[in-house]
């Protein structure tokens, strides 16, 4: 292998590495942006941070396999299509989609999620106009729950 080929190879390696293929020994299935597009029909560009959305989760989680997360939104349910929970640094950041209907009087959902490592939990409200409002809560994870 000559010097030129070697540089090309390193370049390719850097590009692949940058897409987040590797995640320790846990495969990285999707980046946050890919997961937003695939599972929520959103992208980072369409998201606006808003304090109308609230994420309730512990500051510290001993066990990443079982983290209680609540997402609530102070918005008119009629204007909302769905609520989402993402964990930004999970192999697949998408966790849950909750599609609402006129029978849902209050925008609220609670569940338990797995977190691979310390990261942000992202609560997203997708509006019927296609935009998304979000908020974050950082959770310190002692033992990861994905590997």
């Amino acid at each position, binding site marked *: 292998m000559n010097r030129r080929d070697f540089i090309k190879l390193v370049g390719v390696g850097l590009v692949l590495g940058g897409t987040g293929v590797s995640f320790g020994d846990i495969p990285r299935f999707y980046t946050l942006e890919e997961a937003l597009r695939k599972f929520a029909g959103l992208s980072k560009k369409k998201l606006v941070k808003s304090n109308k959305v609230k994420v309730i989760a512990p500051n510290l989680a001993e066990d990443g396999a*079982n983290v209680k997360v609540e997402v609530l939104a102070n918005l008119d349910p009629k204007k909302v299509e769905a609520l989402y929970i993402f964990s930004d640094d999970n192999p697949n950041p*998408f966790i849950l*989609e909750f599609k609402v209907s006129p029978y849902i009087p209050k925008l*609220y959902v*609670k*569940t338990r999620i797995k977190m691979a490592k310390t990261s942000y939990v992202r609560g997203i409200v997708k509006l019927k106009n296609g935009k998304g409002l979000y908020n974050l809560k950082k959770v310190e994870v002692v033992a990861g729950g994905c590997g």
Partner: protein
Amino acid sequence: MGLIGRAIIRYRREGDYLLFNVVIFHPMEPGTRKDPVTGKKIPAHYLTKLEVKFNGKRVASFRMSGGVSKNPVFTFYLKPQKGKITLEYEDNKGNKWRAEKEVNP
């Protein structure tokens, strides 16, 4: 494993609404874990979808990844009405289940 697919549906009145709490027994294997003894990858086995119907009408629907914890819990509000709540849910292996409960707020 005998419990897999069984659901517990509970509700209580909270102010003007009903707060539902649903638990479904399921391993929720994300497909990223390795067996600590054999070192082999544990195949993915998780719920993908949960539809909530009230008197036959769809009132909510959930989609999820293996990132939801084992034996998942879902808590949400519904407008109070009398009738039957039905859960229809399935996993990535094509198993389908249904659970029902009479609601009398």
